């Protein structure tokens, strides 16, 4: 095996360690877990197009389920992916009301990412250009890129899987979505620094 350079732990790994410590009795480590993963969960929830209060409820439900089921979670290291799955499913359950249960294996597709006009107006010129390019990608790529942008490179594969993207499509490689972003930005003379 070729030696790999020592990389700092990704967010998912740090969250996994905090959760494993929580399970073994270090109760205060749960606070660290919440601080670490909340930005990722917020973006995973908001990328489903649901209003903010509904997203907050979904995130809270996910954390409470995590606490209730802490002992039965087989892979504490995978806690970030577990939470992303629960948050996404919970947002969909809430936004559909109680009309229909979502099947266990069903992963609904996120809508095209939207910004309200007020949010759009506070973007910098460069952010508007980036937003235009993001808008040309498929909804699935928009969702994936939005969520992994708040995590670290080692977490991408787990997050992609929890969002229902085929695992083989990302992993240690760039993946199609990052490649598309790179291509569309690269083709824009106005984007190059």
């Amino acid at each position: 095996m070729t030696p790999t350079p020592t990389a700092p732990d990704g967010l998912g790994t740090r969250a996994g360690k905090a959760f494993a410590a929580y399970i073994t009795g270090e109760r205060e480590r749960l606070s660290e877990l919440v601080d670490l993963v909340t930005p990722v969960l917020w973006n995973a929830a908001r990328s489903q197009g649901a209003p903010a209060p509904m997203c907050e409820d979904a995130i809270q439900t996910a954390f409470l389920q995590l606490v209730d089921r802490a002992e039965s979670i087989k892979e504490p290291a995978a806690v970030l992916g577990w939470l992303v799955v629960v948050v996404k499913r919970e947002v969909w359950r809430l936004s559909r009301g109680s009309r229909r249960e979502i099947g266990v294996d069903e992963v609904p597709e996120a809508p095209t990412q939207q910004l309200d006009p007020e949010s759009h107006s506070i973007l910098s010129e460069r952010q508007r250009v980036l937003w235009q390019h993001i808008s040309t990608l498929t909804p699935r790529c928009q969702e994936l890129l939005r969520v992994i942008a708040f995590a670290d490179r080692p977490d991408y594969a787990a997050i992609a899987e929890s969002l229902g993207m085929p695992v083989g499509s990302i992993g240690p490689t760039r993946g199609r979505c990052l490649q598309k972003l790179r291509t569309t930005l690269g083709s824009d003379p106005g984007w190059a620094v």
Partner: protein
Amino acid sequence: MTSHTEAIDARDIANLDQLRDLFAHADPVPSDLAERMKFAITVHALHAEVAELMDSALLTTRGADAKVEPTPTDSVTFTAASVSLMVSASPSEQADTDVRVRIDGWVTSPGARVEAMTVEGSVSEISDANGRFVMDDLPHGPVHFVITDPDNDDVRPVITPTIQI
């Protein structure tokens, strides 16, 4: 030409960084979301009763719709079915600056354990025969209190909303 099967490089990371900045700017995580999640988890895990803030004129709690940081408070009372708690904050006597806070508290149950949960962790004291307790050397910032009966684990703990000291 680059391909999707190549390794993620510095440019991809830079693109993601800019994307993160965009969403963090346009749709930021509510500033107190993580604290509210911790509070919900604590209430849930303790099966606790949530005490009500009685004199809300004296301070602002970190509510769901709070857009600005609450102003610091001097004195406040919380009430639950089984117990009431009053706390007053003042500059700590141990330090010569105002970077630390002293809490003088009074709880309606003598011998109750009062735990203050701050950003630095938790501090706990047992109230005396008159229900009084003192916590010196606490940090400024958010704090909530958990009141338990050290002699009886069956009594439901009482938890207060978070206030700023």
